[in-house]
């Protein structure tokens, strides 16, 4: 939809949370955007990819999140307004670059958007709560609840970044990223195109002893941002569910919440028909500590409603010691720490907190509805079936799957692990099928096949492949070269033949020192089967590039 570029301030249009972030950035005049695709953040990059030209914004899909952030750091050092978007695990890949960047600070304002996925709807690896990164790196962090806040907070994040010369993180979750709602538009600002890098080693070089001075300066900066946070309207108190400002002083109990949980709190108060003071925190870091202390000082008890790890709860415990040591603090004893929250979970917790009775009806069904596992595309009209089916078929014919170990990695082929296929014995993070394979091959005499997609290979597979050569192990690595980043929505990557500046995977594999290499279209089953058998007996690492495009790539 071209609606996202509509320059009609005041008009309301429906946007996805992720699109609202894009819009917010456009309204601040963002120049430079980089991303590596990952659900639930993908639509941020995809939207920029679509509109970059008409909006006059530079956009790239970088090879991984760390490279995306480093590119943004360079643009920021050159004075451009930049935004980087990624899913939760991306920030872990970035961490090495993020820490020093918070020390050096920004020149052009920089916003880093990170999307967590509570309940792991689209995240195989672990249920990450990125708020921990805020403590680790001291990056100021905002948490929007809905698309309007996604837009407003993105703008505010740029403004904070500009004012304090520090990168600012926007932390969203699946239900904010993939929430649609009407959003009130502001004015799009035309970006300034050309940057200029002015030499300031004192500012951009993190070398001891200067680096420790930088840390001191950072902590002083955070103190100032804390004052800003204390006054900021995005940390607001109100009486739910109508959000009136009256009646706050009388209550002996209250609720502190943030992000998506805030919406469930208001929903619950409406359903239970109770008025309670609610402190909604738009800032996660630095927290408005005085505001929190003022909120809790006269209460007998307070409920902290937050998804995943109890960061806010621990902060409130700490802050209560000075102002209200007898305060009863409830949180994770009523709200689960695993999986995303749902409105009924919060309603039940608030009902318990306020001693209200709540009737919940549960039906007993005498029918077992089988679970529908996601699966690799099969028999799609006019397109056919996923080429990975051919790979699976060849592997199953070539080896005894009970005896061979199968390494999985991140992409559609994670589905090799579903009960239907069952050829995945470990699965961890991007690139790790190869990295872990090396360790297993060093530790055992067992045969092993590691699968890795092409985009994943570029992202994090190459160092691991070099390691198998340098430190001598002999897994068989099958690179699934479907020529796109399929799982997240078919974003391009360097190995796609249509890319003018593409990089050939076979050239990289050869240059890494791999001697046993074959490129096979898996439609040639016999060759594939024979090569698997042959390569599994090699004393050095071997690689098969299974080259056949994803059925969804335009031809």
């Amino acid at each position, binding site marked *: 939809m071209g609606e996202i570029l509509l320059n009609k301030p005041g008009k309301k249009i*429906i946007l996805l949370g992720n699109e609202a972030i894009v819009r917010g950035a456009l309204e601040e005049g963002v120049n430079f955007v980089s991303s590596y695709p990952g659900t639930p953040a993908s639509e941020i990059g995809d939207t920029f990819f679509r509109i970059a030209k008409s909006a006059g914004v530079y956009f790239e899909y970088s090879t991984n999140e760390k490279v995306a952030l480093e590119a943004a750091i360079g643009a920021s050092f050159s004075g451009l307004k930049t935004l980087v978007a990624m899913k939760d695990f991306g920030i872990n890949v970035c961490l090495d670059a993020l820490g020093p960047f918070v020390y050096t600070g920004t020149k052009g304002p920089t916003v880093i958007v990170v999307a967590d996925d509570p309940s792991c709807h689209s995240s195989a690896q672990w249920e990450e709560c990125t708020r921990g990164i805020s403590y680790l790196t001291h990056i100021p962090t905002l948490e929007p609840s809905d698309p309007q806040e996604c837009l407003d907070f993105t703008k505010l994040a740029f403004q904070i970044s500009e004012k304090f010369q520090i990168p600012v993180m926007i932390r969203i979750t699946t*239900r904010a990223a993939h929430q649609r709602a009407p959003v009130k538009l502001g004015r799009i600002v035309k970006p300034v195109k050309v940057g200029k890098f002015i030499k300031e080693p004192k500012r951009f070089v993190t070398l001891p002893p200067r680096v420790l001075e930088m840390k001191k300066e950072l902590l002083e900066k955070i103190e100032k941002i804390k004052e800003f946070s204390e006054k900021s309207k995005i940390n607001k108190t109100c009486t739910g569910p109508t959000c009136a400002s009256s009646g706050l002083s009388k209550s002996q109990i209250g609720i502190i919440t943030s992000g998506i949980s805030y919406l469930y709190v208001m929903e619950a108060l409406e359903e239970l028909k109770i008025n309670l003071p609610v402190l909604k925190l738009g800032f996660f870091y630095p927290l408005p500590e005085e505001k929190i202390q003022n909120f809790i000082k006269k209460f007998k008890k307070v409920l902290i409603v937050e998804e995943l790890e109890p960061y806010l709860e621990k902060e409130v415990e700490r802050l209560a010691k000075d102002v209200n040591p007898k305060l009863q603090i409830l949180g994770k004893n009523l709200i689960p720490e695993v999986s995303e929250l749902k409105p009924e979970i919060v309603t039940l917790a608030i009902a318990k907190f306020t001693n209200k009775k709540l009737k*919940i009806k549960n039906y007993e069904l005498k029918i077992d509805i089988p679970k*529908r596992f996601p699966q690799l595309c099969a028999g799609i009209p006019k397109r056919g079936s996923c080429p990975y089916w051919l790979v699976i078929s060849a592997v199953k014919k070539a080896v005894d799957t009970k005896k061979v170990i199968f390494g999985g990695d991140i992409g559609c082929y994670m589905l090799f692990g579903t009960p239907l296929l069952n050829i995945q014995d470990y699965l961890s993070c991007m690139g790790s099928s190869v990295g872990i394979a090396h360790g297993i091959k060093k530790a055992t005499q067992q045969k092993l096949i590691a699968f890795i997609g092409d985009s994943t290979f570029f992202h994090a597979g190459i160092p691991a492949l070099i390691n198998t050569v340098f430190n001598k192990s002999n897994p068989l690595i099958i690179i699934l070269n479907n020529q796109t980043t399929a799982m997240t929505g078919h974003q391009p990557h360097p190995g796609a033949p249509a890319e003018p500046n593409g990089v050939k995977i076979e050239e990289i594999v050869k240059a890494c020192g791999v001697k046993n290499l074959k490129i096979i279209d898996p439609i040639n089953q016999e060759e594939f089967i024979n090569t698997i058998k042959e390569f599994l007996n090699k004393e050095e690492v071997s690689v098969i590039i299974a080259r056949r495009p994803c059925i969804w790539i335009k031809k």
Partner: protein
Amino acid sequence: MDKKISQFNMLIVGTGGQGQITLLQILAEAALFEGYDVKTSELHGLSQRGGSVEIHLRFGKKIYSPLISQGKADLIIGLEMQEALKVYPLANPKTIFLVNKKIIPIPLVKNPVDEFHSSPPFANARVTEEEVLKSLKKISKNVILVPASEICQKELGKEVVAGIYLISLASFKNLIPLKPASILKAIKKIIPEKYLELNLKTFGLAKIKSSQS
């Protein structure tokens, strides 16, 4: 505007690739046209690959949560029967189920268990229409079964518009408090020009069929 409802909660459920997000966009736009606040929730990524897809849409004066609470759904549109049944915790005895008379079978697995994966619930992968209908009727008295896929295939030669057919039908039959004119306007806004004619025909077909029954 005439009488406004304070809140309406609906779900669209089916399997990946049935076009739920397009339906969601159409309904959200229609609700906005009528001056409602609206919130929706959907899932992207791997969960779309043939797995279950559950989409929430809420509109009214002021909507906070994008997700519907347990037992609070007013309308559940099922593009597939088993999927409609699967979301029963969100229904109550008054919930209207408008369900496509269609079962997409779940692939059978012969040897699903080994030491690395705990036993999956594959016991009876095939459930009949009668069984699902019987269970749906235990939950709610308002179960409407419509052979939408069959009708669309027969009359328009395309099964894929079954979802458009069902939301249009729901509007004509007053199962959604959104006017057919708003749905039509939203279809024109959301559907790409290439497919618009087919979708308009589907809308028209729903109009005719709704007046017949």
